[in-house]
């Protein structure tokens, strides 16, 4: 098993229980999409799988190792083999795109090489290759603050492609892109995963994209798995149950409740 969760529960600092006793097994080279309403715990699940978030209970096994029983140094070495694409790309706005992409390999480089790369980019062709696959080959030397939200999201993906991890996790990787670009970007990710024998787990808002690109679909609701099926077996009824929302389905919200709170400065 590449990824294995046993009875994992996550409670955030504000008391919200994001995951409740979750069991999950994902094998090597699988391509899995996680869908579910917002607040279902999709991001928490991906962060737990990436060992970025320590669950309060339960056991996390990544690439055959119990992530939270390792020493900090060993865990950093394990993390270098796992790539997480963030929903809002965590890139410093004053950094150049080439540096942001090359930072993907920091976990594998020595500190000397990392610092040298900061002064003078050591692998411009590598960064350009990763960016070209996402149609950003001409932005290698642009500053991150010059890019749009969708372009930044693709720079974040290019960084993880350059990292070349064995497990690729993606948290809403295409949320800031138009439908055509989103489809293209997902197919790039899936193709990369197939060609390099990478396990791919992505959370998605758009159900159609999930069904189109992924073979296994996990429906998450209230921190629990509602269904876990091959894509072709997912039907309308299950999706309705997944996204059922009593509050939104009741009569359209009355238009007269304009109680705008003006913040005090």
């Amino acid at each position: 098993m590449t990824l294995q969760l046993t009875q994992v529960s996550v409670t955030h600092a504000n008391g919200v229980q994001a995951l409740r006793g979750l069991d999950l097994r994902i094998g090597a080279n699988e391509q899995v999409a996680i869908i579910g309403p917002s607040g279902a715990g999709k991001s928490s699940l991906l962060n737990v799988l990436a060992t970025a978030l320590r669950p309060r209970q339960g056991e996390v096994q990544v690439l055959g190792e119990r992530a939270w029983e390792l020493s900090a140094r060993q865990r950093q070495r394990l993390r270098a083999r796992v790539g997480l694409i963030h929903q809002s790309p965590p890139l410093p706005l004053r950094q150049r795109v080439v540096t942001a992409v090359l930072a993907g390999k920091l976990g594998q480089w020595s500190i000397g090489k990392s610092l040298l790369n900061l002064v003078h980019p050591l692998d411009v062709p590598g960064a350009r290759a990763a960016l070209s696959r996402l149609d950003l080959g001409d932005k290698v030397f642009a500053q991150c603050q010059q890019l749009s939200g969708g372009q930044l999201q693709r720079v974040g993906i290019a960084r993880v492609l350059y990292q070349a991890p064995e497990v690729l996790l993606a948290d809403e990787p295409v949320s800031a892109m138009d439908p055509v670009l989103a489809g293209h970007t997902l197919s790039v990710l899936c193709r990369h995963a197939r060609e390099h024998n990478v396990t791919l787990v992505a959370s998605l808002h758009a159900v159609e994209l999930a069904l189109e690109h992924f073979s296994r679909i996990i429906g998450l609701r209230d921190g629990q798995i509602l269904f876990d099926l091959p894509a072709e077996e997912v039907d309308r009824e299950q999706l309705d149950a997944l996204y059922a929302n009593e509050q939104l389905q009741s009569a359209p919200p009355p238009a007269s409740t304009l109680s705008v709170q003006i913040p005090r400065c």
Partner: protein
Amino acid sequence: MLKRDTRDPAARPRLLLGLLALVLLWPGIHFSELNLSVLMASDSQREMGRFVSAFWPPAHDAEFLELLGQATLQTLAIATAGMTLALMLAVPASLVASRALSLSAASHAGRPEYLSRLLRWPVRGLLIFLRSIPEIVWALLFVRAVGLGPTAGVLAIAITYSGMLGKVYAEIYESVDQRPAHALLQSGSGRLAAFCYGILPNVAAELVSYTVYRWECAIRASVVMGFVGAGGLGQQMDLSLRMFAGGEVASLLLTFLALVLFADQLSRLLRWRLA
């Protein structure tokens, strides 16, 4: 009707806060025994007038200018050497004291573990100790130890300023978005690399601005320490004041003005380059 539309709900709290600030200011003026009417008394005005009128024209004979040039260079050297020594201590200390590099914070939603929080305290305490004693006291101490001259000034600036720089650097690191550095830590990078790639780009301009400002302060501090015998423009100023040479004092003050203007322009240039 119009009145209700244009009413700003924040107006009243702001007015009250402004009044409160004024009310709190009054005891401050009272306890510092500030008495502006002294300035209006005729004999003190005459005294000040005589002192200031001696300032013109500023001294500009060749001999004094050469002395002034040397003192200026010495002051700049004291400030720069002191800052360099201070940075050598402040940069590592700020990296240790700051929560920005905490590995455990990256996987606990931004909060470091208790043990690592405890370990930061000795360093914070050291920085507090270093900056709590004014540089003039250190200078007096070092003048006793190493004798009159610039060395005492350099050491005094190095000690006090390392405390100030370390504290403010650590806080600047924490004041920017931590997600880039956390994301890098979560993908296996080391702490120093995560700092350089995730935090440094966002804080560089702020750091440079503060460092140049502190360098400017170090120039002023080295002048003050000159009065206790630590060399530079201050020592010259002390001599000129004792001799009631108003013209020389004026030239010295103009030099300070030029130095501060220079530091200001340098800071602007560097910030523009880093923005």
